[in-house]
């Protein structure tokens, strides 16, 4: 099936209320396919409900560091105490079909032969593309190992970002606008939609993006959701209180 409009989101982190708000918005966006960039679980209180909703909506994606840690606790050894605590909770909640969904997530996805999706970096789910040096490393990796990929989507930092590399090798972060951003055919891009379930750019809304493949544009979208309900669930689940307070602050 040819895909003309694609929705991509990342880092849902078991926040059902935020994910439902994104789907409500998506219902008016006429997209052909929805994909995620990993970290479906962790931090928040509704890992099972989130996976069930993704399965119901036929959303496929890639694995994140919290997803693999939920399957193998040894991989959470390097997590901070907030994340570690939430992974212990997550492991208690998951049923067999949730585990099967997480187990089935690949490290990366290549869509339409040209769009690459991964969680952290091209080398690991744990590493970041958070600054220009890391973006340069990722662009170099793409040029050497994946010359057919010009546009890649990643998550993990919880902050929306577009890194571009022009034909002279100059790397820059593009200004993010409400209007669609045009992706030039002579440049490479690393694009992060931000986070659905735990945004960290001091904007508490759930964030995702829409790719228009015909027009070659990406549009960042942000939607309000019921933060109070998500917070109440975190406290009811006896997860660390900071995980609730940070949702309202967008950190």
């Amino acid at each position: 099936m040819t895909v003309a409009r694609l929705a991509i989101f990342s880092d849902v982190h078991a926040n059902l209320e935020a994910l439902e708000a994104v789907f409500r918005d998506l219902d008016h966006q006429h997209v052909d396919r929805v994909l995620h960039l990993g970290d479906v679980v962790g931090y928040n209180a509704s890992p099972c409900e989130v996976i069930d909703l993704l399965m119901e909506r036929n959303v496929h994606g890639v694995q994140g560091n919290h997803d693999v840690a939920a399957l193998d606790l040894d991989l959470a050894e390097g997590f901070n105490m907030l994340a570690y605590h939430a992974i212990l909770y997550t492991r208690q909640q998951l049923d067999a079909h949730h585990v099967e969904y997480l187990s089935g997530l690949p490290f990366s996805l290549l869509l339409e032969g040209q769009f690459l999706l991964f969680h952290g970096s091209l080398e690991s789910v744990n590493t970041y593309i958070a600054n220009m040096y890391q973006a340069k490393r990722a662009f170099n990796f793409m040029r050497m190992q994946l010359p057919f990929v010009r546009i890649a989507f990643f998550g993990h930092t919880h902050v929306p970002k577009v890194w571009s590399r022009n034909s002279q090798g100059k790397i820059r972060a593009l200004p993010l606008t409400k209007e669609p951003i045009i992706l030039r055919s002579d440049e490479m891009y690393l694009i992060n939609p931000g986070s659905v379930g735990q945004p960290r750019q001091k904007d508490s809304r759930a964030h995702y993006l829409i790719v228009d493949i015909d027009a070659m544009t990406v549009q960042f979208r942000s939607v309000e959701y019921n933060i109070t309900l998500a917070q109440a669930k975190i406290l009811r689940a006896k997860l660390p209180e900071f995980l609730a307070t940070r949702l309202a602050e967008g950190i």
Partner: protein
Amino acid sequence: MGGEETIFGTKEVTLRSGKRITIRPMIAEDEQALLEFFRELPDELLVFLRHNVRDPAVIREWVEHLSYDRVLPLLALDGSKIVADVTLHRISHGWKRHIGQVRIVVSPDYQGQGLATAMLNEVVELAAELGLEKLWAEVPLDSIAAVRAFRNAGFGCKAVIEGLVKDAEDNNMDILIMVCDIERYFDRKWLSKDVNLHHQIIRE
């Protein structure tokens, strides 16, 4: 789930000796254990601390006025015994609002086992979650173990100020200023082992 529910959760780490240690934020109920921890510390370690921590009134003041927004104290516990204390100090306003200052003290019986590095790693990770951008530490220049622990946790040596502070015998000492750039800190996690990405790509 195990462990107490605290605002920042709890975590267990394994020391080089194989011993399991719990790391969690200080809570009011830690008053007596904290006093015992500080009373057992040798004088030469106490000189690095800003307060007379053997005075019960000081500890009472701490636990009665816990404010994680201002100071986040993390404790390492071997069972119910406190064996290390690391604090993250934050300034909410002004030009240092993005900087956290880190102080650490580890019981001599638990030094040399990777505990300081584990605690400092935890602080760096939590600082990232709290939105801080840099961490600052002042370390005695001749304390090789402390410098190594901070370096292991991603801190770099930035400046030496000669003869600035005094030790227990009133001798002037040099201090080393160490800074962790939290964003760059994550660079250290780049894996060196080869990952054959082509085998991992799922084409659709």
